[in-house]
């Protein structure tokens, strides 16, 4: 029987090694796998490359990984927010490397990694500093930048509901980067509010098919401090 459930977040992240490339879902305070991030922090793997839209605020989530010095590099569209003090500190002391990526380019680079596509041409960023050093071309008078796939070893994602096959249903805007990240990693670990029995999810409402998910950890719903 296919059953992707694991007993704890701790167990689910236990094999993440030093130097791993780890995608982490979420946008602002929405759809962040906070329990998995905390388990990863306690697990203590370092020298990580983190791929995520934001860089965490206060002492929470990715900010706690930055605080503990576990992050070597971050690939991000909007690392600087109100309260992103640990990112700013590590950036200014040059102990963390930043690869800044426009948001739509970030999500599409993740998607194409999951879709087996080797690169794509986007008009986003053409003629700007973020295209420097990248291959460009002009098609029908419009400029494009060639962007390459972003793969990861692990993806930590957050959803509302799952089933034992790893199918995921999200809550409102909690989808954000989670569905693409689930596609793009070698091992995808989903933190969910509840696991339903096989066949209880609405098949028409499943957003992430279980084929993209390797491990599922249920938990009580966590309300994220705003």
């Amino acid at each position, binding site marked *: 029987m296919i059953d992707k459930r694991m007993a704890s977040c701790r167990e689910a992240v236990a094999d993440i090694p030093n130097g791993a490339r780890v995608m982490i879902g979420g*946008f*602002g*305070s*929405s*759809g962040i796998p906070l329990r998995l991030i905390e388990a990863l922090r306690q697990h203590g793997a370092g020298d990580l490359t983190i791929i995520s*839209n934001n860089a965490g605020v206060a002492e929470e989530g990715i900010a706690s990984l930055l605080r503990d010095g576990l992050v070597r590099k971050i690939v991000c*569209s*909007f*690392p*600087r*927010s109100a309260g992103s003090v640990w*990112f*700013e500190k590590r*950036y*200014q002391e040059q102990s963390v490397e*930043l690869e*800044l*990526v*426009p*948001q*739509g*380019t970030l*999500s*599409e680079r*993740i*998607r194409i990694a999951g879709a087996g596509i080797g690169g794509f041409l*986007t*008009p*986003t*960023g*053409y*003629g*700007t*500093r*973020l295209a420097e050093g990248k291959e460009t071309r002009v098609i029908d008078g419009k400029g494009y930048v060639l962007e390459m796939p972003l793969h990861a070893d692990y993806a930590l994602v957050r959803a509302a509901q799952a089933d034992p096959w790893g199918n995921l249903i*999200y*809550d*409102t*805007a*909690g*989808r*954000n*980067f*989670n*569905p*693409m990240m689930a596609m793009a990693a070698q091992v995808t670990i989903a933190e969910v509010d509840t696991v339903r029995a096989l066949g209880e999810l609405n098949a028409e409402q499943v*957003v992430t098919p279980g084929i993209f998910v390797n491990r599922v950890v249920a938990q009580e719903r966590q*309300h*994220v401090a*705003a």
Partner: protein
Amino acid sequence: MLRLNPEQMAQRVAADIPDGSYVNLGIGLPTKVANYVSGDQQVIYHSENGILGVGPAPATGQENPNLINAGKQHVTLLPGGCYFDNAESFAMMRGGHLDIAVLGAFQVSERGDLANWATDNDQFPPAVGGAMDLAVGARRLFVMMRHNTRDDQPKILEACSYPLTGAGVVSRIFTDLAVIDVTPKGLQVVELFGDNRFDEVQAVTGARLLPPV
């Protein structure tokens, strides 16, 4: 000169949003525009994190931590709204499906170049978010900004000195002094607020303006 306050500026931008438009309002000042879209205008708001049909803020105690807009504020969903992932959200933006995006700006050039994501201060880490995608993708890009910086420097320039968000992307500029279109002939003043005179506005602008016709 008459300088509109932010609420008046928002009201003026709102007047230029046609009924039935799909609109993305940038973080900060542009967010106020929604307050002035009248009942005759049905506008569907897009939020880059994955919402179409963004509604007003929820009542206290009714917030859903997952249901936020791109500015990380709690919102609601209107009847007829829906959710999608970030890749699809940016397909809408980059693919030309949004009628209008309203963004703030540090600088706009006479060719419609936009600079709104980074200054020349390297002390702060940069952040770009969805600005570059909106800049290239929205059918019409409205810039909403004060005409001058706090130390009275012009923000409309022959060329931007700050790093670009996009080149040749701005359609119309709404400042606290005037409404100005970016046209192939140059910066065309469309409207001068109150009794503002063309030569007064030109004097505080860093690029040549074309007078209203």
